[in-house]
């Protein structure tokens, strides 16, 4: 499964380049095309919208104006009837007659006449439908009314459904037919036109007239008296709305669907080439959009003709007519210009479709060409990739032969060159590797042999304490019966008590964290490094339990850890070097004991010298007593003997006090100055004839807890060296001081000094420049051991033939040296 995944991935990658190339070609070629197309489409649509909208608005405005004129014309023509003097005279008469009628008699009179009219009373009928005024009406409607400049157009004649006149009481006075009602004073049109006698034109709303089976609207005009003082009657004319407006509206068509229509502010159609008159706009939400009192155009959510497509609608009010209709019944009339969106946006959609088709074709072509081009580019690259892969796997192959004539061909040549180069280099490398391998083998073998020839056990352990290597010495010393130990834990090999194991582990961890490259406490270790004193078994003692010695199989080993650099990718290992010091430490102890005895010899020689003088005195006084008879003299001599004896006794006491204490002495508070003086005295006694001048500058010192004998031994060794260096005379200067909580003891001689090359070795055991029998080479070693045991330091500085300075520094309190069992 994993393999399948990998192969799919690489398959994908293989096609990636081709895909990218095709994609970039598409992006470069097709994207601008598509964007341009879309932009052109939207821009075009927008512009068509704008252009159509403003055209529609202009058409609506123009048509509205035209209809306004038609209505105004009709109004003024009809007004000719209203100013007809015959009609006015008749109506004035009727007004005057009415004013004669008593108020309470009026209602019954009207009632009576109305009944007569309803019953088609012949008198009334003929009076109303045949009188001279009817002739006037007929002349007007029939077109024979002669008034220069006002011929009645055929249209309005034929659209007039009814025409009649009432008097100031609303009674029918004259009518073209007998369908008109007799009493009209309660009608809206009558009240509107009469206007309480002031008179104003009235245009009624469109409504279905059952009598004429069609949608009609009323034009009513007041008839004013001859002075135009007040209204004396009303003329009503009823028009067939469709027929009245259609000639002005239906002819305006553009395209297949473009047309204008007249609606009122309720959305009712007065005239439309498509919608029947009297119907309402299909979408009522359109009405407020298209019936403001100013011209304009709007994109509307529907077309008002039942379609739901977004439409561009131009509109304009019939402002003059609307003034009349609004004062008459609150409605206004509006033009509405519309063309179906399909037709309006048809051309651009058509254009868009074609362009889109060509665009698609173009994209297809781009993809095909892109694929071919990409294949041409990608195939050699893939070939190269395959070659590179094989080279990468170390399979050298035949040179790649590409002749694309471009950078890829150059690349192929480069790859070929690289292939050759690699092949030749690999050949050289192989022999080199062989050589190196041999070297490594030789190194390994020699290392093993070196390690095996080392008499000390060397062990290497891994990070988990498992044993990785044992040299010959360690096998012999530690592995019983040549057992197999590789891989086992170090502590299986070392049978140790738990605290020691714990201590070793701690050290291992420290080495691992490479802190342990130098021992825990650098300060105590310094003397080891500087002074090269491997024989000083106590050099680490004062750091407390950190003694690097092990007891294994009844043998004592000193050991040392060392870090082994790790091979790449592995944890570093640790090496352990052991040194069997069982015999060595025995020998050392003996040597040190011997040295101690030797210094005891120096002391005893001094003591002997001390004793010799009084003894000579005693002997001399004794001999004198033998020959003396005078008891006074004898007494005096005896007193001398006693004195000498006492002095000897004190010398002996001192001596026994020192020697007796040397092995078992516990620490006491030692006065360093006194100890120095005592030692100086003792040493001076050994070199009685030495021409050495001694200067002491002793500062007051605090007592120091120490073994006074050991301290004395150290001082003895140093001072003895000084005397020995000044056999031909000189000055010995001994000074003490307290500095920084330390006691500084300076012992300076003006002797022959030490060779600079010898200086680093002076503390080494058995190093001596003295002649046979003069020194053991352990004096300074012992002094160094004693001083460092006290936590102090001892340094020597010297210049050839100038003298030597020995500086002993002892800490005063805090750094109390630990007590050790070791002698």
């Amino acid at each position, binding site marked *: 499964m994993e393999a399948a995944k990998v192969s799919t991935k690489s398959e994908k990658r293989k096609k990636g380049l081709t895909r990218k190339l095709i994609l970039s070609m598409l992006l470069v070629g097709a994207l601008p095309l598509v964007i341009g197309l879309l932009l052109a489409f939207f821009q075009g649509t927008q512009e068509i919208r704008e252009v159509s909208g403003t055209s529609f608005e202009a058409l609506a405005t123009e048509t509205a104006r035209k209809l306004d004129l038609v209505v105004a014309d009709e109004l003024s023509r009809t*007004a000719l009837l209203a100013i007809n003097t015959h009609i006015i005279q008749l109506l004035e008469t009727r007004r005057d007659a009415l004013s004669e009628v008593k108020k309470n008699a009026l209602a019954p009179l009207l009632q009576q006449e109305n009944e007569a009219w309803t019953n088609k009373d012949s008198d009334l009928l003929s009076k109303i439908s045949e009188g001279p005024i009817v002739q006037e009406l007929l002349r007007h409607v029939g077109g024979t009314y002669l008034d220069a400049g006002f011929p009645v157009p055929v249209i309005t004649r034929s659209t007039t459904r009814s025409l009649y006149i009432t008097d100031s009481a609303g009674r029918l006075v004259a009518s073209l037919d007998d369908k008109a009602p007799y009493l009209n004073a309660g009608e809206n049109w009558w009240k509107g036109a009469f206007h309480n006698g002031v008179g104003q034109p009235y245009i009624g709303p469109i409504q279905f007239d059952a009598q004429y089976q069609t949608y009609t609207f009323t034009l009513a005009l007041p008839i004013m008296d001859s002075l135009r003082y007040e209204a004396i009657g009303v003329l009503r004319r009823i028009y067939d709305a469709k027929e009245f407006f259609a000639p002005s509206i239906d002819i305006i068509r553009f395209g297949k669907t473009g047309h204008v229509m007249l609606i009122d502010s309720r959305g009712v159609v007065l005239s439309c080439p498509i919608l029947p008159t009297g119907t309402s706009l299909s979408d009522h939400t359109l009405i407020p959009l298209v019936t403001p009192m*100013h011209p304009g155009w709007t994109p509307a959510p529907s077309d008002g003709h039942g379609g739901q497509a977004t439409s561009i609608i131009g509109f304009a009010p019939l402002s003059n007519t609307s003034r009349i209709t609004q004062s008459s019944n609150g409605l206004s009339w509006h033009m509405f210009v519309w063309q179906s969106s399909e037709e309006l946006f048809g051309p651009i959609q058509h254009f868009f479709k074609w362009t889109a088709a060509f665009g698609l074709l173009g994209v297809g072509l781009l993809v095909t060409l892109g694929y071919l081009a990409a294949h041409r580019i990608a195939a050699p690259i893939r070939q190269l990739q395959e070659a590179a892969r094989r080279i990468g796997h170390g399979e050298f192959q035949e040179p790649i032969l590409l002749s694309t004539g471009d950078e890829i061909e150059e690349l192929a040549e480069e790859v070929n060159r690289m292939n050759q180069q690699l092949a030749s280099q690999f050949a050289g490398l192989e022999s080199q590797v062989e050589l190196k391998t041999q070297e490594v083998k030789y190194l390994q073998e020699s290392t093993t042999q070196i390690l095996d020839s080392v008499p000390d056990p060397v062990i290497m352990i891994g990070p988990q304490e498992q044993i990785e290597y044992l040299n010959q010495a360690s096998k012999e010393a530690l592995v019983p019966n040549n057992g197999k130990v590789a891989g086992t834990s170090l502590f299986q090999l070392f049978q140790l008590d738990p605290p020691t194991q714990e201590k070793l582990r701690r050290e291992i961890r420290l080495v691992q964290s490479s802190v342990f490259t130098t021992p825990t406490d650098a300060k105590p270790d310094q003397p080891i490094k500087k002074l090269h004193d491997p024989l000083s078994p106590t050099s680490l003692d004062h750091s407390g339990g950190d003694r690097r010695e092990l007891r294994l199989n009844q043998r004592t080993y000193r050991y040392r850890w060392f870090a082994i650099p790790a091979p790449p990718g592995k944890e570093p290992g640790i090496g352990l070097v052991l040194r069997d010091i069982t015999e060595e430490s025995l020998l050392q102890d003996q040597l040190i004991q011997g040295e101690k005895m030797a210094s005891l010899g120096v002391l005893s020689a001094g003591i002997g010298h001390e004793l010799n003088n009084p003894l000579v005195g005693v002997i001399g006084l004794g001999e004198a007593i033998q020959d003396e008879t005078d008891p006074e003299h004898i007494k005096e001599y005896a007193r001398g003997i006693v004195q000498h004896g006492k002095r000897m006794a004190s010398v002996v006491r001192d001596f026994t006090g020192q020697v007796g204490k040397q092995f078992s002495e516990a620490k006491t508070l030692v006065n360093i100055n006194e100890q120095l003086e005592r030692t100086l005295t003792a040493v001076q006694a050994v070199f009685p004839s030495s021409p050495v001048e001694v200067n002491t500058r002793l500062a007051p010192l605090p007592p120091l807890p120490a073994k006074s004998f050991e301290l004395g031994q150290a001082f003895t060794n140093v001072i003895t060296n000084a005397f020995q260096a000044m056999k031909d005379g000189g000055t010995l200067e001994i000074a003490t001081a307290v500095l920084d909580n330390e006691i500084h003891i300076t012992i300076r001689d003006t002797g022959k000094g030490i060779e600079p090359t010898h200086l680093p070795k002076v503390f080494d055991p058995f190093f001596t420049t003295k002649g046979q029998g003069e020194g053991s080479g352990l004096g300074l070693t012992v002094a160094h051991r004693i001083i460092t045991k006290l936590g102090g330091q001892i340094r020597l500085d010297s210049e050839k033939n100038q003298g030597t300075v020995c500086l002993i520094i002892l800490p005063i309190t805090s750094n109390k040296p630990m007590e050790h069992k070791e002698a």
Partner: protein
Amino acid sequence: MRMKRRHPAVAQRRILSLLAILMLSSSLPLEAATDPPPKGISPAKVADYLHAIVEADRKVYTTQIVKRMQEQGVVLAREDWESKNAIPLPAQFLHYSSKIVAESGSGIRFRLISLWPIYLRNGPATEFERKALEQLNANPDVPQREIVSTGKKQFFQAVYADQAISSSCITCHNSHPLSPKRDFKMGDVMGGVVITIPLED
């Protein structure tokens, strides 16, 4: 109904014309004027008073309101003022106030008429009105008065000259497509204001 524009008498002439009316009144065949008036006020005087007010109102409108409005670009006065968010022309102002007066039902009426109306409805309605306009054309300072009747109703009518007091009056009338006369000049009598007072029993 009526249409016409122009301005008649000027204020200074008012007193003169009143004097003329008083002098004329004795020679006129008016019952009300010939009879020694027992009490009240003669219709001629009422008409004069009314005309003075109408005249003043329109003058204020023409010279103080319309002119300033237009000069300062606040709003235009134009014929189709209702649909164009404008204000009425001075003549329309008079027509409009005349309509309001009529609708008030007080019986008093006035109209602005002309021998050369843009709209026929503003022509003279009667022979008297025509003659009065002609008289005024010749003699603008002398108002024409008459008792007229319609049917049995009697009215006192007085016609006062309406003269061109603003250049916009003549510009419009000289250029309007429906205007029958196109050579008006400043100060010309363009028409008259007819004041009609019903004579009740």
